[in-house]
C-alpha cells in the first residue's frame, strides 16, 4: 500500500470536448419496451398476485374437501353471487355503509373542531394531545358495552364507536400535519395578508394535506374494522343488520360459503375504498404536487 501521508494527486493530461448535439445521442428519450410498460402497471402486478393466491385457495380447498370448514373459491364466489343477487347481502352492505358514513362524517367534523381549537390555543393543543394519548390506544370496540348502556341496542351505539375510532386518528394526524408546515410557507401565507380561517383554508390545510390524507385513510380503516366487529357482536335487529350480522347469522346456520362470501365483501369494499377512492384523491393531490412519492 502507498504511504498515504505522502500521497499527492496524480497529474493527468487535460482535455476539452466539443459537446455533441443532444439530438445525436439517440436515447435521450425512448419508449419503454412492452414488458417494461406492463410491469410498471400497478394493478396488473397486483392482479397477478391475486390470481396466484386464488389458485392456491382453490387447490387447498379441493384437497381438504370439507365444505363445512373451508369452501372452495368457486363455491364462495357462487355464494357471493347468490347472496348479492337473490339474498340480503347487498342490503346488508348498504346498511353497514350508511352507518359507517354517518359515523365517519361525524368523526371528521369533531376532529375538525378539535384541531381548530388545538391550533388556535395552547390549552387546546394540550387538551388534544392528552385526549389522543389517552384514547388512541383504546380499541373502539372496547367501548361498545358502554355505548350499549348509554344508547341502547341500535345504530346510535354503532355510530358512537365509529366516531371514537375515527376521531383520534384523524385529529392527531391533522394536528401533526399543521405543526409540520414549514416556517417559510407560513410566513409566505401571512405575507399575502391571509389571516384566521382563510389562512387555515388556503395555506395550512393544503400544506398539511399529506398527513391529513394519511389520517383520513387510517380513520377509514379503523372505522370499517370497528363497524364489522361491532355488528358481529350484535345485529341491531335481524331485519336491518349489516354485513357483520350477515356473517354471524350464516355462521350460526353453518352456511360457511356465505360466511366466506361476507368476508370477501368486507375485503372488496375495503380494497375499493383504499385503492380507488383514496388513491384517486392521492393522484390528484399530493402526488401531483410532489409532496409525496
Amino acid at each position, binding site marked *: 500500500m502507498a504511504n498515504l501521508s505522502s500521497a499527492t494527486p496524480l497529474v493527468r493530461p487535460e482535455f476539452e470536448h466539443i459537446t455533441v448535439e443532444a439530438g445525436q445521442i439517440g436515447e435521450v428519450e425512448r419508449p419503454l419496451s412492452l414488458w417494461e410498460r406492463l410491469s410498471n402497471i400497478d394493478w396488473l402486478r397486483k392482479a397477478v398476485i391475486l390470481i396466484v393466491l386464488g389458485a392456491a385457495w382453490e387447490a387447498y380447498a379441493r384437497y381438504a374437501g370439507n365444505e363445512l370448514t373451508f369452501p372452495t373459491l368457486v363455491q364462495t364466489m357462487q355464494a357471493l353471487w347468490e347472496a348479492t343477487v337473490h339474498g340480503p347481502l347487498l342490503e346488508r352492505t348498504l346498511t353497514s355503509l350508511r352507518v359507517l358514513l354517518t359515523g365517519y362524517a361525524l368523526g371528521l367534523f369533531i376532529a375538525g373542531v378539535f384541531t381548530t381549537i388545538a391550533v388556535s390555543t395552547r390549552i387546546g393543543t394540550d387538551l388534544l394531545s392528552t385526549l389522543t394519548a389517552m384514547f388512541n390506544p383504546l380499541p373502539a370496540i372496547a367501548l361498545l358495552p358502554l355505548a350499549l348502556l348509554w344508547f341502547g341496542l341500535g345504530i346510535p351505539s354503532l355510530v358512537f364507536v365509529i366516531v371514537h375510532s375515527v376521531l383520534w386518528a384523524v385529529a392527531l394526524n391533522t394536528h401533526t400535519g399543521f405543526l409540520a408546515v414549514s416556517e417559510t410557507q407560513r410566513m409566505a401565507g*401571512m405575507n*399575502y395578508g391571509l389571516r384566521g380561517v382563510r389562512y387555515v383554508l388556503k395555506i395550512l390545510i393544503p400544506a398539511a394535506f399529506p398527513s391529513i390524507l394519511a389520517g383520513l385513510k387510517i380513520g377509514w380503516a379503523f372505522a370499517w374494522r370497528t363497524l364489522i366487529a361491532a355488528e358481529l357482536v350484535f345485529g341491531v335487529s335481524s331485519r336491518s343488520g349489516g354485513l357483520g350480522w350477515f356473517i354471524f347469522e350464516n355462521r350460526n346456520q353453518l352456511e360457511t360459503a356465505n360466511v366466506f362470501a361476507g368476508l370477501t365483501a368486507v375485503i372488496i369494499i375495503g380494497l375499493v375504498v383504499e385503492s380507488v377512492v383514496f388513491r384517486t384523491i392521492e393522484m390528484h393531490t399530493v402526488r401531483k*404536487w410532489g*409532496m409525496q412519492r
Partner: protein
Amino acid sequence: MTAIQPVDGLSKSDAVAHSPLLSVKDVTLQYKTREHIVTATYRVSFDVFQADRFVLLGPSGCGKSSLLKGVAGFMAPVEGTMKLNGRTIDRPSPDRMMVFQEFDQLLPWKTVLQNVMFPMLTSGRCKRKEARERALRFIDKVNLTKFRDAYPHMLSGGMKQRVAIARAMAMEPDILLMDEPFAALDALTRRKMQEELLQLWEDTRFTMLFVTHSIEEAIIVGSRILVLSPHPGRVKAELNAHQFSHAEQGRPEFGALTQRIHNMLFAERIEEEALSKAGAAHG
C-alpha cells in the same frame, strides 16, 4: 464609535426632498429559544427612501434575514421602532412583499402561474384577468414562460427563486424585500437576473430592501449600502453605491469601494483574532 463621515456624490436638495418611506430606529431583534435569548441585531437604524435600492450587507449570521423579517412584520423588535410611511409595522402585509432565502417558499400545490397569481388574488389587489396578465408578464421577465404550468417540485432551486421574485414583483408592493434572492444562481444567470432587476427598477422605480453577503452584488445592485458587523449585527457604515453598475466593474473606484467594504468587514475579524490570541496567551 467612529464619527459619521459625510459622503459626497448626492446633491443636498435630493435628500431633503423626501421623507423616508421606511424608517428603522434603534432596532434590537431577539430570538427566544428554550434555553437562552439570541440577539440577532443590536440598535440598528437606517432610513429607506422612495426608489432606493437599499442593501443590507454583512457576514453570515449577522441578522440580515432577521431585519428583513422585522420589516416584513414577522418579528417584533424588543427595542426601537420600524415605520413604513409613518405607520408602525405591526403585522405582515402584502404592501411589503418578501422573497425568502429558503427554497420552499412556493406553494407546492399550485403551478408556477397560480403561485404568481395567488397573492394578487387573495389580497384583492386585482381581478383574475388582470392578475393573469400581470403574472404572465412577470413570468416572462424571469424567463420561465415555458414552465408556467409546472409544479414547483419540478423546478430547480434557482428556478424556484425566480418564480418567487416574479411573484413578489407582480404585486408591485410599496417596498420589495429580497433575502439573498440570487445566492443559488450560477454566475451567468445571477448576472442576468441582476441586470434584469436593475432594468425593472429603471422601468418602474420601485423601492427595495435587498440582502446579500456578496460585496460585489451589493455595489452593483444597491444605491445605498448598510454594512453590518458580525453577529449580533450592528451598523458599521452606510455607503453610496448608486454610481456603480455592471459596466463600472473594472473601474478603480469600484475596486476601491470593494476594498473599503472588505476592510470594514474584515477589520473586526482581525481584531477578534488578535483578542482571542491575546486571551489564549494570558490563559
